[in-house]
């Protein structure tokens, strides 16, 4: 009996004195980019030679492109190869995690490649070094000349696995390549990979070109050029090089963009000092008037679901941004801040609108929510405009011009990119001066 009573009380004491689970809230961390090691890809000794590509160096070349892509995001810190402790072939089979952790890497990319029967096969693995496990592994087969794209696709896959977002490396940027004096500028349409490689010119520079935009499949481009001394919207097939004037408008058309399904072009049509927004169906060629106002309505851009259009208008006096349904109904002004707002572009994610703002002679690139709230100005400069979204809605590319002297000396135009957080502002390397960039969607999608 005694024993029972004692045991009972001992039990009570123990249960009452046991501790509740300690909880600690972690609400802050560091904003340092994630340290990642990209090991050169191992080149299989059975690989054949290729006429155009140095297969021997390919493993290193691919890893360097991946590193460069990561560095440009500002989210990753690729570690120097000199510190690497394992040979690529062994690392790809089974990395010695503790050795890689010693150089402070948190993730590791390994891979190998083989060229056989004129085909390039590349495989890669992404390792979580702290957890000592593989995160993802994939293999691609293509022609050896496509090796740069393979590097970009691998970058996309790793980016997606580590951030949860789609990547934006296997993409292109179309822009206006500029050369010559400011007063006699030659402007050509140019296209390049997002990292600046593979630049190609699509027009000869005889006519002025402006505002090129990709269609959703990245095969067609719509832009502004001159036809019989009149600015008109053009359509260009990148594959065939065929060009055509869009629609039979009795006046100037400008600021074109594709609808999200690629079936329509939306643009401004100006006549007698008034400009309104129109769409044209590319198949049926039916033209539809969307706005009908005595003010200047321009720079239209569809929401990704195609249900709304954002545009700018001076109907309230100063140029401001408005949103309406895609049939032109329910027009709502969304910007009320001081200054002039222009070039609104709807994010591919649908959550934000990017714009250019001019205030007190300074130019800003900013983003805001689709109802106009939460305006954030990301960058300020002497002259900059025309933001265009990366396909994942994370980065903006725009162009910036420098101040020039009275004779146009010292003038230059260049492409820049910035993260929507306002960090990681970077100049894009282009062969010539550049303006009016437009980012394609993912090519491999």
């Amino acid at each position: 009996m005694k024993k029972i009573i004692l045991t009972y009380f001992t039990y009570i004491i123990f249960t009452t004195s046991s501790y509740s689970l300690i909880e600690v809230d972690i609400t802050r961390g560091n904003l340092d980019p994630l340290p990642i090691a990209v090991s050169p890809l191992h080149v299989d000794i059975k690989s054949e030679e290729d006429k155009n590509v140095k297969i021997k160096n390919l493993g290193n070349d691919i890893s360097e492109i991946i590193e460069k892509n990561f560095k440009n995001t500002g989210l990753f810190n690729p570690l120097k190869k000199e510190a690497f402790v394992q040979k690529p072939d062994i690392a790809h089979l089974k990395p010695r995690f503790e050795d890689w952790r010693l150089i402070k890497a948190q993730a590791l990319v390994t891979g190998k490649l083989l060229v056989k029967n004129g085909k390039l096969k590349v495989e890669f693995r992404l390792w979580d070094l702290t957890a000592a496990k593989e995160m993802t592994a994939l293999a691609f087969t293509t022609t050896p000349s496509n090796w740069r794209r393979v590097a970009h696709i691998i970058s996309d896959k790793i980016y997606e696995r580590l951030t949860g977002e789609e990547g934006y490396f296997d993409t292109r940027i179309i822009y206006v390549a500029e050369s010559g004096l400011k007063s006699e500028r030659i402007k050509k349409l140019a296209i390049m990979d997002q990292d600046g490689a593979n630049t190609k010119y699509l027009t000869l520079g005889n006519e002025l070109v402006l505002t090129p935009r990709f269609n959703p499949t990245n095969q067609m481009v719509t832009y502004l050029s001159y036809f019989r001394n009149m600015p008109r919207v053009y359509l260009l097939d990148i594959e065939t090089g065929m060009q055509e004037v869009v629609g039979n408008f009795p006046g100037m058309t400008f600021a074109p963009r594709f609808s999200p399904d690629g079936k329509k072009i939306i643009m401004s049509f100006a006549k007698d000092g008034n400009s309104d927004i129109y769409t044209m169906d590319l198949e049926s060629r039916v033209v539809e008037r969307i706005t009908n106002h005595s003010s200047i309505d321009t720079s239209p851009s569809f929401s990704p679901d195609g249900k709304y259009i954002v545009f700018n208008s001076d109907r309230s006096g100063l140029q401001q941004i408005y949103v309406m349904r895609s049939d032109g109904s329910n027009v709502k002004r969304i910007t009320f801040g001081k200054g002039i707002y222009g070039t609104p572009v709807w994010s591919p994610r649908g959550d934000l609108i990017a714009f250019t703002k001019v205030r007190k002679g300074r130019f800003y690139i900013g983003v805001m929510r689709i109802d106009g709230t939460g305006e954030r100005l990301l960058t300020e400069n002497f002259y900059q405009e025309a933001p265009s979204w990366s396909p994942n809605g994370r980065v903006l590319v725009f162009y910036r011009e420098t101040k020039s002297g009275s004779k146009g000396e010292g003038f230059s135009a260049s492409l820049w990119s910035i993260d929507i957080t306002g960090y990681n502002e970077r100049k894009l390397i282009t062969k010539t001066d550049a303006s009016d960039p437009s980012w394609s969607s993912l090519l491999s999608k």
Partner: protein
Amino acid sequence: MTKSLIYSLIFHSAMILLTVLSLPFMIREPVDLPPIVSVELIQISDKTNIPFAPKARKIIEETKKKEERIVSEQAPPAAKAKEKPDRIPLPDEKKEKKKIIKKKQNPEEIEPQIRQSSEFEKKEIIDTNQIAALIDKAKEEEAVKKEQDDKLTQSSVKNSFATGLTLSEEDALRAQIFGCWSVPLGLPYDQDLLVRIKLKLKQDGTIMKSEILDHQRMNRPGQKFYKVLAESALRAVRLCQPLKVPPTGYEKWKDIQLNFNPVEMLKG
């Protein structure tokens, strides 16, 4: 008769003994309040003075400004004047700055409440009814509003009262993990992305076992961001090993839960 009297005596004395032994524990369980709060405030400021990235600093400075405003508007001037010199003598500006830094890092901490309690007599501190009521309230609210943003504030309320670690111990641990956690910056800030990790620790602070409490969510479609965050949190605790745990009281902290919430960081 005498036999039963003896039994009764033994039983009663045993009861008294057990009550004396167990009562302090019973009090501690619901209260768990570090008794020397005011002293520790100064210690914390020293320990938690960790460097921040410029972006984070900006946010914190804003929070600080807001807090200062609130303090100046709400706190009754008379009581404040009495409080400050009594509790934390601030001989020079430097110390004051340090104190502010501490504030910045734990914006959600309920400092006004702590101050109040330290002002009162000890008896009042161990007013179990009041505190238990507070805890219950905090717990209830937490359960209801787990998915809301202000959950953070509430769990902080709960923490400062209910954890087995003192504030400085908790802050040391928090500061250590801040340094190890690379927040994935691409995450959306408008989603509920709270990752709760339960750890089983060895006495030296190394991790015996780690478990993500909602790990099924990681493999659900459309939860890529949650997965990324959970992985980053796991990386952080592994990198931080051994965790900075107190040298004593292993039983208290051998099981510990870390709640990773990046919302504040991402909003900036």
